């Protein structure tokens, strides 16, 4: 694992003494200024010019397979006017005081960094030009740059960045907000496909991931967790375990989920993980899980049915008078929809390596959100955040799982218990399935009223979800502006709550991955009642092109219409046809419409082809990776719907142990083709990690309905 070469100003000075000249940037940028309470991002030190005129660019965000390790450096390299071949990409450490927000979540890297990373590159370029202007005694305005060199066209002189770097580093960095940026027509890197920077290492099996971390004297910890979430340790009998040669320690720790002072996890530390794992069968732990044994999937289903039979406990959004409008409607459509808890099932199991020495904690963490991981580890371990150093590893799948940091908190405690010894904590697959932060289940009871023209005049949804202290738990909320609420005259969105002991969290396209199925599935029923297909109902309901208020961001009806029209054109959509389904969803600032073609043969549903049209604004930064993200998202959505994915709980305990209990998509279930197109619009570019996922699920359900005539209102779909 390469130690990040790009740290802070002091490191730069050290680096410059050691060899390559260095270009520093000290600049502050306030990001998301329109968002109240947004943290200011302080940026510097992303660029180092090497003696051979290669340029090392720091990639600050965690790489989980979304391609950000290439994408962010592309933005810097573009404005620095480099040839891509000059670029060496290095993962930075986690330090938000230096690099700004470093989160792989919410498809946020593009919208958050599109301008700041370009400004970083442009500022560096301006400093190089200033240095060249001084050296040549010419006006900086007469200079240009190309492929890592400053040019003076009048004289034909040129200087490489490497030869200017030392002088440039003494220049005062320009104001990032005022530095000139390229016109997009001049882009030579942005918009060109760039392959993954780590691919050469991946195909050789070189160590990259957290699980691959190696250090002298490394010891290994396997985990024993209270089977039911929220249970705690009463007593540990570890005599038999400690008698095993190679076992070093047994340590009770807190994953962060139970109150501090209690333990819900016991670590067996040994000189081999396999040995520690095997020793678990000899560990006897008495747990107190009396408070959580009553929670079960069957119980949730029963309670949800009971809550749906009554009026919602609380109102989420009201407009007009939905009851009156329903009473006067020409047609009324009613349906119940539901979806289950889901696990993330990253292929690399949760792990983290930590070393506690001289009161400081050093971590090698596959974290999607190391800033939060630092805070959580500090809280649980009782260590000051500034006494921690966090190195970022490549991550074997994120999907939101590693936005929450039980693995870091546990590793920190293990390291503290064994000062001076690096400890790697690793979950096995069952630990990983049973101690996830799950996508919460939910239930919806809909009524919609149509007028004589087929327009939606009333919409009611009673949403049953999970809450604690009267507030939805993590990822269990619904936006008050869930479409089509804001454009229907009479709306009543209400919510009822129940409790769970399960920890919940964000799964790729959180809330949207469920709401798209629920709302677009129901709207397909409404469209049918109106004598329309879903794209046409959407067009009529969206109405004129305009921006309407959304939850956190506005929703643009014209952009929605744009992708609906595009996918219908590409797929040759001709209205309701047997074997085809449509879905649209707006999430994470991306507008996506998708068409799914299915056939049913020998009692099995087969997806033949998927068409995707997306609008993520004016620029697709890395086209090849963009297509990969979209295709992977679509396949993941199909997997959620088609394979029986469902986390089941009995007596407080999640029953899934391995991939036999929670199937992931395999090659034989994947369509032959997923066609991807982007509709370019004059809006700032946005992210692609998530928004292509949600609409594929209703498109699939609606396609199956077109063949069977039976509505599919529950995930996972019963495959006929």
């Amino acid at each position, binding site marked *: 694992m390469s130690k990040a070469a790009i740290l802070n100003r002091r490191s730069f000075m050290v680096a410059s003494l050691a060899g390559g000249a260095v270009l520093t940037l000290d600049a502050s940028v306030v990001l998301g200024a329109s968002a109240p309470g947004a943290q200011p991002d302080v940026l510097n030190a992303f660029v180092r010019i090497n003696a051979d005129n290669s340029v090392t660019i720091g990639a600050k965000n965690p790489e989980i397979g979304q391609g950000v390790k290439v994408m962010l450096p592309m933005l810097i390299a573009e404005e620095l006017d480099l040839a891509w071949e000059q670029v060496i990409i290095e993962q930075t450490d986690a330090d938000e005081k230096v690099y700004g927000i470093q989160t792989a979540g919410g498809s946020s890297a593009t919208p958050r960094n599109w301008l700041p990373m370009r400004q970083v590159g442009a500022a560096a370029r301006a400093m190089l030009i200033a240095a060249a202007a001084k050296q040549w005694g010419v006006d900086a305005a007469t200079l240009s740059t190309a492929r890592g060199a400053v040019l003076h066209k009048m004289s034909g002189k040129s200087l490489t960045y490497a030869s200017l770097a030392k002088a440039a580093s003494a220049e005062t960095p320009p104001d990032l907000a005022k530095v000139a940026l390229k016109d997009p027509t001049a882009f030579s890197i942005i918009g060109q496909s760039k392959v993954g920077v780590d691919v050469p290492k991946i*195909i050789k099996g070189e160590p990259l991931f957290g699980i691959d971390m190696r250090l002298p004297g490394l010891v290994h910890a396997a985990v024993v967790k209270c089977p039911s979430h929220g249970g705690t340790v009463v007593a540990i009998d570890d005599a038999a375990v400690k008698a095993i040669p190679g076992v070093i320690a047994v340590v009770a720790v807190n994953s962060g989920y139970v109150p501090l002072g209690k333990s819900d996890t016991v670590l067996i530390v040994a000189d081999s993980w396999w040995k520690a794992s095997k020793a678990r069968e000899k560990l006897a732990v008495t747990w107190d899980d009396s408070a959580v044994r009553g929670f079960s999937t069957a119980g949730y289903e029963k309670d949800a049915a009971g809550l749906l039979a009554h009026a919602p406990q609380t109102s989420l959004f009201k407009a007009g008078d939905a009851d009156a409008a329903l009473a006067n409607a020409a047609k009324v459509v009613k349906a119940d929809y539901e979806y289950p808890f889901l696990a993330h099932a990253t*292929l690399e199991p949760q792990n983290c390596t930590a070393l506690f020495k001289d009161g400081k904690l050093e971590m090698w963490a596959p974290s999607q959100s190391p800033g939060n991981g630092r805070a959580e580890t500090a809280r649980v371990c009782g260590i000051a955040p500034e006494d921690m150093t966090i190195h970022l590893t490549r991550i074997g799948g994120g999907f939101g799982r590693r936005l929450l940091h039980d693995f870091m908190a546990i590793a920190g405690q293990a390291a503290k218990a064994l000062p001076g010894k690096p400890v790697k904590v690793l979950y096995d*697959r069952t630990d990983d399935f049973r101690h996830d932060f799950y996508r919460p289940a939910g239930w919806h009871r809909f009524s919609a009223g149509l007028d004589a023209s087929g327009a939606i005049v009333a919409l009611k949804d009673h949403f049953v979800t999970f809450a604690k202290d009267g507030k939805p738990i993590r990822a269990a909320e619904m936006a008050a502006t869930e479409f089509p609420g804001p454009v229907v005259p009479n709306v009543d969105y209400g919510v009822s709550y129940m409790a769970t002991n399960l920890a919940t969290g964000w799964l790729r396209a959180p809330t949207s991955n469920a709401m798209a199925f629920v709302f677009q599935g129901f709207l397909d029923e409404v469209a049918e009642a109106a004598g329309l297909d879903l794209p046409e109902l959407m067009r009529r309901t969206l109405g004129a092109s305009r921006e309407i208020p959304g939850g956190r961001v506005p929703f643009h009806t014209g952009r929605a219409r744009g992708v609906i029209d595009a996918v219908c054109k590409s797929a040759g959509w001709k209205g309701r046809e047997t074997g085809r389904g449509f879905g649209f969803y707006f999430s994470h600032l991306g507008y996506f419409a998708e068409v799914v073609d299915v056939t049913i043969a020998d009692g099995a549903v087969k997806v033949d082809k998927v068409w995707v049209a997306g609008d993520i604004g004016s620029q697709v930064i890395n086209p090849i990776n963009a297509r990969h993200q979209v295709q992977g998202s679509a396949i993941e959505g199909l997997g959620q719907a088609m394979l029986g994915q469902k986390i089941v709980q009995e007596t407080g305990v999640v029953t899934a142990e391995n991939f036999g209990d929670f199937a992931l998509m395999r090659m034989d279930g994947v369509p032959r083709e997923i066609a991807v197109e982007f509709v370019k619009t004059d809006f700032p570019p946005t992210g692609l990690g998530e928004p292509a996922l949600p609409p594929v699920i209703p498109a699939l359900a609606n396609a199956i309905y077109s063949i069977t005539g039976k509505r599919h209102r529950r995930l996972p779909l019963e495959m006929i």
Partner: protein
Amino acid sequence: MSIALTVNGRKRVVEAETDKPLLWVLREDLDMPGTKFGCGAGLCGACTVHLDGEAVRSCQTLIADAAGKVVTTIEGIAANAIGKRVSAAWAALDVPQCGYCQAGQIMSATALLKQNPKPTADDIDGWMSGNICRCATYLRIRAAIRHAAGLPAEIVDAGQPSGEQMA
């Protein structure tokens, strides 16, 4: 006990308990972390290696059963002509996303092309369905296998953004 085996052409002797899986001997005793732990139950294929030329799940292969045998892992796959072509195809088509499963995918794909040099689309799907890719890079895995086998591309990728070129 002391167990001798050949790994990527090199004779190795390991001291390990006989029931220790080959996966963990590779990762812990031989310091070769390229072979990945995914499920420990032979369900995901991340730990696929070749044992005497056959693809096996190293998490389900006890080291005692590998004694005296020839093991090839991802670290050594490019020494094999087919493995080299497969790895090169993986790079050329930018197959990996997170990359965690890809060692196992490359090992399985190489084993496929060794015994079936010109597989049909169904052959590829059937053979490769023991390997999970959580990022779902399956379309490119299919394409990379065809590329390595010298088969024509299955799909002319319509609808891709303009200006696309490999770099």
